[in-house]
Every structure is written in C-alpha cells, then in structure tokens.
C-alpha cells in the first residue's frame, strides 16, 4: 500500500490542475460563443492574416 503515498497526491493534483484549467478557460471568455468556436476552427483565416 506504500504506492498510495505518491499515487493519491498525483491523482488529486491532476484533478486540481484540470479544475484550474477549466476556471481559466471560463475567465478568458472561451464559453461566450460556443457556436462560433465550432466554426472558427475550420476557417484558415489565421493563415491569411499573417503578414
């Protein structure tokens, strides 16, 4: 059972990292335009706009 000593903190740490990433994406407004995001990924205007 010694394996728990590093497995448990690792599991909890990964979960916490996921939660923080979610909160960050929420704060930066990535859920404001769900339909637009689905479509934007297909357009290649980012290539065209580069000088």
């Amino acid at each position, binding site marked *: 059972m010694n394996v*728990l000593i590093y497995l448990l903190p690792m599991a909890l740490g990964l*979960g916490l990292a996921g939660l923080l990433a*979610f909160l960050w994406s*929420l704060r930066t407004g990535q*859920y404001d335009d769900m339909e637009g995001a689905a*479509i934007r990924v*297909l*357009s290649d*205007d980012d290539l065209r706009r580069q000088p």
Partner: protein
Amino acid sequence: MAGLAAALPGALPLPGPPVRDFSSFLRPVEGGGIAMDFAVEGIDCAACIAEIEDAVEAVPGVSEARLNYTTHRLAVSWPGAPAAEPEAVFAALARIGYKAHPFESSSAEAIEAARARHLLRCLGVTGFAAMNIMLLSVSVWSGNVTDITPETRDLFHWLSALIALPACAYGGQPFFQSALRALRARALNMDVPISLGVLLALGVSVYETLHHAEHAYFDSATMLLFFLLTGRYLDHAMRRRTRAEAANLASLKADLARRIEPDGSVVAVPASAVRPGDIVLVSAGERVPVDGVVCAGAGAVDESLVSGETLPRAATVGGQLHAGSLLHDGALQIRTTAAGTGTFLEEIERLLERASTARGAYVKLADRAARLYAPVVHATAALSFAGWMLAGASLHQAVLIAVAVLIITCPCALALAVPAVQVVSAGALMRRGVLLNTGDALERLAEVDGVLFDKTGTLTLPEPSLANAGEVPADLLAVAARLALSSRHPLARAVAAAGSGSPLAQVREVPGAGLEGELDGETVRLGSPAFCGVEPPADVLDGSVMAVRWGARTALLAVRQQLRPDARATVSRLRAMGETLGILSGDRAAAVEPVARELGIADWSADLRPAGKIGELDARAERGSRVLMVGDGLNDAPALARAHVSMSPISAADVTKAQADVVFLGERLAPVAEAMAIARRARALMRQNLWIAVIYNLFAVPLAIAGLVTPLVAALAMSGSSALVTLNALRARMPERETP
C-alpha cells in the same frame, strides 16, 4: 432628391449628409482603447465570420473586430476615442451586404451573463470533485469485496469528505439559496428536497466515516449536484439565448431620425432620443420614425405596416402620421407627438396591456411536474423512516434508509428532461431562421390547433413587386427598370428589381408624377398612367398601376404585394398537420378575397380594427381552440399578445416583433410550419423524458425503501437515467433530415 425637396412648398432644409452621434454606444475597454457593439442582421453561414471580421478590420483605425456567432453581435475596438469612426464600420458592412445596428447591452443582460458564469463555475467545481471522489469510491467498492483494510477505507472516506464538503458548499449555492428563499416565503420548491437530500447525505456520510462504516455517500451527493447543475445551466443558457435574440430585435428599433435643430441644421439621432415637440425630417423611401403631425411638405404615405391598408394615402400639413409608415414620395417635416416607447396608437397600447394580462401566466410542463414532485418525495422519505422504525429497525438504520430514498429520488433526470430538449430544439429552429423570443414559446406552439394569418406583409411579401412582368414587352420592361434605378420611390424600386442594367443618364424626377429620361434619342417616362399618356384601367383592386412610355410605345405595369413564394405549399402543409386556418386582415375585403381564394382559405375576415382581431381570437378561445397568430403590422400587435402563441416575420413593425413569441427570417413562410413540427416533436420528447424519469423512480424507490441501495447502486441509477434522458433529447435534431 434634393431637387424634389426644393420643389415642395414650405422651404424644407436639404437633407445633406447628416451628422450621426454614436457617443452613447462607445465603451472603454481594458488596456486603453474604445469599443462599440453592433447587432448584425443576415448572418447565416460560417463564412460570414471571416468575411465580416476581415471587412471591418480593413477599415482604417480599427484595431480589432470580433464577431460572436451565437448572439450575432460584432465588437469593434479602436485604439482611442478620436480614432473611433462607427460610420465607417456601418459603410464597410453595408458594402458586403450586412445591415448593422448600434447595440447597447442592458444591465439585465450583464447580470444574466454573470449568473451563467457562476453556474458554469459551480458545474466545473462539482464535476471535478465528483470525478475525484469516484476514483476513491470505486477503490472502496472493489476493496470491500476483496481485501481493503479498514484503515485504508477510512483514509479514502476522509479524503472524499475533504473534497466533497467544500465542493458541495460552493457548487450547491444556487440550490441552497433558492431553497432558503422558498422556505422564507413559506413555500416548497424543487430545490428544498434537493438541498435537504444533499445536506443529509453529507451529514450521514461524515457520521458513518467517524464510525468506520463500510458505506459513505460523498460520491452520490457531488454527482447529484453535478447533474442538477447541468440541467440548471442548460435551462439558463436557453433563456439567455432567447433574451439575447430579443435584445437584438430591440436594437433594430435604434433606427435613426433626422432631427431639425433650432438653428436649422439637420442632425441624425437615434429615434429613441427624439422628444415630443421635436421636428424630424422624412424623405421619400424612409420610414416615419415617430408619431407626429405633418407641419410642412406633402407626400404619399404607405401605412401597410400600421393598418394593413395597401393603397397609399396622401399626407398633407396637419395630417396625423404613425411611426412605421413608409413615405412613398415627397418630403415631410413632422412635429413629434410621441416618440420611443410611446410611438404606437394609444388604442393599441391599451389593448396590448389588456390582451397580455388576459392570456394569463402559462404553467410550463417542467413546473407542473415539479409541483407534484416535492410533496411526494418528502412523504415517501418520511413514510419509509416511520415504517422501518415501526418494524423494529434501529434509529441509525432508519435514518440511512430515509436518506437513501431522498438521494435516489433527487430529480437528476427530471432536471435534465425538459432543458435538454429545449436547447436541442432551439438550435434546430435557429438553423432554419426561426428565433424564439420567449422561453415557453416551444411548449405553447406545440399545443396549437389553429393558425390565423394577417394578410399584408405576412401572407404577402412586405415589399411590393411587379405582378404582370410576363405581359410587358421585354425591351420596354428593361428600359423601365433602368429608369427606375434612379428613384427611391418604393414602386420604382419594385420595377427596378424586375430588370437589370445601368441607370439612364440625366433622369429628371417630376414630383407626384414620375421619372423622365432619354435613351437612343427618344424620351422615356415611367410613372402614373396619366403622366405616360395611357388610359388608367378601371378596376384597380389591390396595389398600384404604373405605366412606361418609350417613344410612342406604352405599357401598363401592375405593382402589388405578392404572396410569399411558398405560401401555398405552407398552407397545405399546415392543413395536412391538422390545423384550421384563417385570415384576419385590416385591409379591404376586395384585397383580401383574392388572396383567400388563391390559398383556399374559406375562413377570412377583412376591415378588422385591432379590437376586431382580438374579438375574433376571443371567439375562438371560447370554443376551446388554441390559436397561433401570425402577423406583422402594428395593428396586429394586440392580437399577437392575446393569441395562445404568436409569430412575426423579421420585417414586422418593432412593437409587433417585441410582442411575438417567435420571429422568423427570410422571404419564405415555411418556417411557420417547420417551427410547429419541431415544437410538436420537442413536446413529445419532453413528455417521454418525464416518463423515463417516472419509470426510473418506480424501479429505484422500492429498492431504496427496501434498504438495498448502496452507494454503488445509487451512482449507477443516477448516471444511467440522466444519460438516457440526455440521449433521448438529442433526437429533437432528427426531423432536419426528413425535411430538407
């Protein structure tokens, strides 16, 4: 136009390029710079995003343009206030064919957005907590049947408690607050059993952990909150989306009025900024922005949007005009009597108020289910507690069973059943150009058994068009169309749309008569039959007759409002769906009769005042009929508010559009039938989902009462039923494939 204005009596100031003032719409952004929001009309495809953003970013001075595809709003930012030129953005959008309106987001919308973010954060917290606790719980469950030591199990339970207690305290806020509010008002709502269930489950689990027991319900409590928050968020997102649509529609009202300042200069201001007593200028082809009295000028006014009447009437000094009327020719100065919210007829305002209170509050399907739910759950839990005590079980055992009943009956599936279907259906409707203005429109639409149409602008197209193009010699029509390009007169625009080519040079507009130009050395005239030297036909039923003369050859052009291209197909489809159809029009009987005959609608009434339309609706309501009213005119607004559910085309008068539960885009009438088909399917699915939730409870509750629900069983039952309901909701997308 300038020449025309000068020729009119009353010495009108020339409508030069007016100054537009948008400073009230500009807002500062973080990190310096200034931004403005636009509501953009006509976005219907993915390519629009890049097209619009590129066009606007090409405008000098603009630092960034970002289109929100969900809400159809464009945010444009400039590096500083002096650089901000909203006018150039409007011009750039107009060049690529999009109409934009300045948009000011209301504070109510900002509060809604903050609430949505809070719900999403709660959802995230409980979601991650549930996942981590499940990791520990699965270990405990598998350990319980193999070789887990009591010490390890206690460690896992304590770790679960460490995650679950703060996560539930944070994520449960929306439910706890709402339950507290309800209890303070001495009422019960769905959130009371939810809060009670969650709190009891957590309390019992801590107690069990303290006593080194085998089972703890931390995973159930967090998973419960996760599913419930999902339902709550979907419901909220749906209402926010319809509200955003409604706000976009309201911003269309921010049309501009040209106000004549005391010093004689002309300034364009938002129509909402015009005050009673102000004088505004209206020239041919424009809509009257306010209610008022003509104080100078003369012209012909098309009031089809106000009263449904299709023949233009003359407006002279001292005459009353209503907002929404279209000026055919001439130019007018209007002294404002009412502006902004007070623009519509007093009669309509009064009727509107009465009509919307008469309809009463509609009780949504989900609310009806919830009203039954709370007492039943509490009674079941209390009864099973009492039953086990009487049967001789220990207090500890009886409490555990009562808590299991509360957990298992918590309405995960119930909370998802309706919102999931609504979100999927609203998306399907939006792809067909149908926008929901109110949240419960979908449910009410599904109950409809009769459809009543307004005629002008609803069954017919809002713009007039050439009706006898086939009878006019092709070369004459082509010349007429080229000549018509030089005028903004609505009838001339209808003729211009019938042909193509470049405008003629040196066109002269003769006020009140028509246009005159020259081609191949011969005079071309387009205008009233008398102006072209043609005998006017004796029987003008509907619309107007114009004539064209080229040299010695002449032809008559009949311009009228034609049926929407698919009106007949839609009417027969609605009939096939079992709807009774009718027409309620404010127009003359002579104009309504041919339309009714062509569509095969026997039940029609003409010459109806707004009160008359309400009377017709009431008569049907008394017979127990639930009616969908489709209309676009100002005179339809009270009827729309009175009907069980209502629809408007996007071209409708603002007041009317604001009243309508559903707004549809485009020239086709088909969205009326499509919306009803989707709504019926959505209602069927909602009912199915509610039944799934009921059947789930029929199986799960006896298990819980019998004391057989371990945390493992609770987890399986809850997630299983929620997944089933969500998958079933996705079927609301399916009719798309059946009707292309």
